[in-house]
């Protein structure tokens, strides 16, 4: 599959509650590998219950395969709950840290202006670079990235998506 074909597949956010113990992440990622699914991003963190973690996985796959993926995940004994979030009814955010090359004053100012438009924070300014923190949906982060790519990105770190269904 070409990378273009891959990018054109719909993005799904899968949210799961899993046992908070060693080896669980391994079992889940191994399932993706063994069944030929791809992980776009994965985030894990504790929840309000100390023995459960929330794992949020984003993946690009054909809708016809989504059902199979969810059923295979549900079969894993360490997974207590799995659901595919409806993007329209979900709050989801990602955080990105981007270090951008900025050699002179004009560059720096331009980047700071862009950052303001995106409500991104400037975390650090050095002689040769500016480090920006952007929070938002993956699309928003992509948009910001595409804008500042002209200045040369020195380094970027993205957290992957965290998500919760709206309402109760």
């Amino acid at each position, binding site marked *: 599959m070409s990378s273009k074909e891959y990018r054109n597949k719909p993005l799904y956010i899968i949210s799961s509650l*899993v*046992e908070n113990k060693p*080896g669980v992440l*391994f*079992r889940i990622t*191994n399932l993706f590998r*063994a069944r030929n699914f791809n992980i776009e991003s994965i985030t894990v963190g504790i929840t309000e219950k100390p023995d459960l973690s929330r794992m949020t996985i984003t993946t690009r796959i054909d809708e016809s395969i989504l*059902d*199979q993926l969810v*059923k*295979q995940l*549900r*079969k*894993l*004994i*360490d*997974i*207590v709950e799995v659901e595919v979030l409806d993007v329209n009814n979900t709050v989801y955010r990602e955080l990105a840290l981007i270090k951008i090359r900025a050699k002179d004053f004009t560059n720096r100012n331009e980047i700071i202006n862009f950052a303001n438009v995106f409500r991104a924070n400037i975390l650090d300014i050095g002689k040769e670079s500016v480090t920006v923190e952007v929070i938002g949906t993956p699309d928003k982060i992509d948009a910001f990235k595409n804008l500042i790519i002209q200045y040369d990105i020195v380094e970027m770190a993205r957290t992957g998506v965290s998500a919760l269904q709206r309402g109760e």
Partner: protein
Amino acid sequence: MSTLTFTKHIWKKSFLQIHSSLKRPKLNYHTNECQSIDNEYIYEVSMNIRTMSEMSGSKALMQSLEKEGVEIVFGLPGGANLPIYDALVDAKFRHVLVRHEQSAAHMADGYARIKRKAGVCLATSGPGATNLITGIATAYADSSPLIAITGQVPLNMIGKDAFQETDIIGVANPCTKYAFQPRLATEIPEVIKKSFYIAESGRPGPVLVDIPKDVQQEVTDIQFPDLIKVRGYKPIVDPDLSNVGKAVELIISSQRPIIMAGGGVILSGAFSELQALAELIMAPVVTTFKGKGAFPENHPLAMGPIGMHGHAEANRIILEADCILAVGARFSDRSVGRFDEFGKGMNIIHLDIDPAEIGKNKSVDIAIVGDVKSALRTMVKMLSKGRTNRSSDSPWLQRRKELIDYFSQNIKDYPRELTARKALKKLRELLPVDSIVTTEVGQCQMWTSLHFDVISPGTFFSSTGLGTMGFGFPASIGAKAARPNVPVVDIAGDGSFNMTENSLAVSVLENLPVIVFLLNNDMLGMVAQWQRTFYDRRYMGVHQKRCPDYVKIAEAYGANGFKVQSMDELDKAIKSALRTEVATVIDITIDPEEDVYPFVAPGTGLKDMITGA
């Protein structure tokens, strides 16, 4: 039982209170030392009270296995499971020493397939554990309940590349239903109870329990839970009634219904239910190869297995059906050929206990998730209310007869006095119907599928999903342990038997006699057939060169061996083997070039079947 001492005023408290106030010695994960018991209540001699059971992790393991009703375990010891072997000396169940751990897993698997409850195998860490893997993967591919218990290096050595350390949990992950590594002796009873529950319920499968040596040795107070809960695991047993109702309607309204019975029927033991349903709706019954023997193959509705090497009439009739009821079958490529072609234009009803099987290979019209037995019972009940009035001379069943007649006349036998087909017909003639039959892998296996009718349901099994050469013989020994009163036969190929023939020692020494019915073509015959068909007879790596001499091999282990070169000799050898109840190898010389037909080439559909006629 430990004797703990308490001061008088504490003793007055109820037992339960004392019980719950006792703290377990804490194990330090880093230094691996037991800290002293930090408990104000335990001191001073005043009165002796017998309280909880203090025992080692290994002893707790034995008692847990006993509580699960384990009668027999198959294994081989080593450094990392010595404490388990020490506890085995006093265990109430039998231990069978194997000559290779792979065979221990196959034996436990064979035992499980006949008992329909989990079989247990043991191995040490590192190479012992990795030797089990082929057996575990075999059980996984065929949904067989297996408990594999491995020793592991002590907790404080894990991750240090210790001697005979293998991350067996990591290795086994893709081929186990679950894997545990108890880190405290107190966890063992719960882990074992969970293991059996997971292995045997829902869609069965193997579970690995990897126990570090120090956990086996740790002596502490052990409690045995009566109830366990696995919150992330909820197997569905009873099907959704409205779906069953819809399926029944669809069956009633169809003209040419067919039942495709798979391994799930055997796993569920739903033989009488399947037969009742088939007779009610008067539908021909085909099976997958794994489902062979789910339905008596001499029944007037039986058609035998479909698939790559299915019966010709079965492969043909399923193309003509208008409604397929797939029961406990997972639409494997070997049974249905091309997924896109199979069942085109027909209604498919899929009954399976594993929701993930629904729509995995084949999208279906009606899906019923649940246990075969429970679902078929409900269907039979719904149908018995006088809704069907099909007769045994319907055009559909006449078509069945026509196809059987046509193919029986048009498929020629290989022109030799002694062929695999004739040998298997002879075996069927002489073998009591309740005997258990298993196979190795290759042509020998497919000939069995084609030419050996299983009459008593549930008396046949084989390594089908993984196709593990060397499975049949040890598995037959396990089956003999599960049902000692009937003859057990492994229909073998020379190449496969080579792989685990050292289990002859087990068969002889443990008094678990089985018959190895060796269809000896002096070839890795199935591979040779593919090289003949697809690679222009460019043979490579298939000749066995008459090595070894199987009669001598048998005799070397104290078993009987017969070399058979005619039908007459075969007759005598089978009768003798059945009479003597001593492990027997019947080495039957057959032609190296005999092919298995029919054949549906990989990547083609059932309609492209080559009959070889």
